[in-house]
């Protein structure tokens, strides 16, 4: 794989809050069109990694390079900020707080397009319709206020917003975790389709190993800010090596699963 195929590269990434090391020495490379999972439980630092990549948190040390440009320092001006916005986007977990309650989906996407590209009203309207079709929302839903939409529909609007500027990388920060099972499957399918059509790359931040298996090619397991295991997702889940990965895998209920207390489990692993 050549250098130019890497759309996101993170090296030596570190974040310290006060005396707490949230992320320590994180490294990975994400090729175009591939998907990477960052797996961990609360306090593992996985969300902090996501926030640093999109610029909502400033790294203590390390570099983040997206589409060949360094984004580990705050952007110097509006143009650079917008350029970064066109390279990497994010979809958050909570579909209820992630939309402005006073703006319809269509207005939201239109505003993003206007800020980035300008263009005529007609051009933007066409693009809004195109994005709505991509995420599976009809006209009426795009023109509804967020409070009239269900959680799954709101999350589709959030995905449309993130895709409006055609980013190369999309960070999915637990984006399907809060959705009902039947809706979660719809959104995961939409995400898979978008990847096939657009060649976009995903970084999926998740604690849900089944979702990770469904959507990603490679996975990184984090525990207390440190990467404990990484590899091809299917191999990592079928044959975990690190004790923590084994513990995570063994905690997932399924047919034949019986819950065990930590002590018994530690003995079994």
């Amino acid at each position, binding site marked *: 794989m050549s250098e130019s195929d890497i759309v996101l590269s993170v090296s030596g990434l570190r974040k310290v809050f006060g005396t707490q090391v949230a992320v320590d020495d994180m490294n990975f490379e994400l090729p175009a069109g591939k998907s990477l999972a960052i797996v961990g439980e609360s306090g593992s630092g996985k969300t902090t990694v996501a926030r640093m990549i*999109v*610029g*909502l948190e400033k790294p203590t040390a390390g570099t983040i390079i997206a589409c060949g440009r360094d984004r580990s320092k705050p952007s110097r001006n*509006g143009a650079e*900020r*917008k*350029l*970064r*916005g*066109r390279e*990497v*986007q*994010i*979809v*958050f*977990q*909570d579909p*209820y*707080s*992630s*939309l*402005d*309650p*006073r*703006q319809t989906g269509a207005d939201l996407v239109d505003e*993003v397009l206007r*800020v*980035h590209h300008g263009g005529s009203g007609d051009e933007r309207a066409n693009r809004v319709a195109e994005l709505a079709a991509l995420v*599976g*929302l*009809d006209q*009426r*839903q795009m023109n*509804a206020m967020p*409070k*009239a*939409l*269900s959680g799954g*529909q709101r999350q589709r609007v*959030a995905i449309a*917003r*993130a895709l409006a*500027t055609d980013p190369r990388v999309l960070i999915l920060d637990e984006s399907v975790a809060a959705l009902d099972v039947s809706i979660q499957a*719809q959104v995961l*399918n*939409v995400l898979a*389709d978008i990847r096939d059509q657009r060649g976009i790359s995903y970084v999926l931040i998740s604690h849900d190993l089944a979702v990770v298996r469904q959507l990603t090619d490679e996975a990184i397991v984090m525990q207390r800010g440190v990467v404990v295991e990484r590899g091809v997702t299917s191999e990592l889940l079928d044959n975990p090596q690190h004790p923590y990965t084994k513990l995570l895998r063994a905690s997932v209920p399924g047919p034949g699963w019986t819950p065990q207390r930590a002590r018994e489990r530690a003995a079994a692993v």
Partner: protein
Amino acid sequence: MSIEILDPVAEVIDNAPANRRIPKLGFLGWLSVAVIALALFLAIFGPMLAPYDPTLSNLSYSNVGPIAGHPLGFDDQGRDVLSRLMAGARTTIFGAAFVSLIAIFVGTALALLTAWFGGKTDTFISAALDVLFAFPGILLAVVAAAVFGPSLLSAGLALSIAYSPYVARVLRGAALKERAMTYISALEVQGFGAWRLTLRHLLPNISALIVAQGTILFGFAMVDLAAISFLGLGVQSPNADWGVMVSEGKTSLLQGYPLVSLSAVVCIVSVVAAVSFLGDRLESNSRGGNR
């Protein structure tokens, strides 16, 4: 790709009462609206509609009670009380509106600044506000009168400055909460600038609280301006003002003619009550229905 989305609930919700344009106010709410409308009408047209010259005194009518053509009688200087009430509405209402608008503007600006930048900006502005909190509005107005001479303008400005910390403190909390919403983060990641985010997204989402704060302040301002005029540091006699009328009425009051003070007090209290009630109602409506 075809995912069929069947969604009857969106229709159900579209017709829900939470969405209708006319707010649900109840009888007292609409009564408040009526009182405010009347007050505004008087503030604009009162001086022109007053049946007699509000400053023309005729000592032979001093402290004469209601007679034909003068339903509220005369004050101790023999001026028509109804005319003075109507003429005084302008300075009283617009004075209070001026004070609350300036306080809301300054307070909102400070709240948005602290919420947006956080960190040191927040600490600095909050500390400065704490210092201002130590000065009661009236005291500041007295100082202003001493320095710039007694006038409605200096009293009003002093009150505005004294009120803005209250506004800033209340709105800061709301703005911080809104700032932490992920929709703001998502738009930040899009590369939106601070101006667009605060003015087009953050501000509209705390607007209900701003309106509510404004109405509460309006009530305070009316009472405080009246008190300042009562002390002789605001509107100057012989100009009519409700606060001045309460003050001037005290001599009549002592002589057994309460109507002068009383009519002005009733006007002040009803407008203050109406505005506060409406603000309260609007705020609780918006809290119930927004998200």
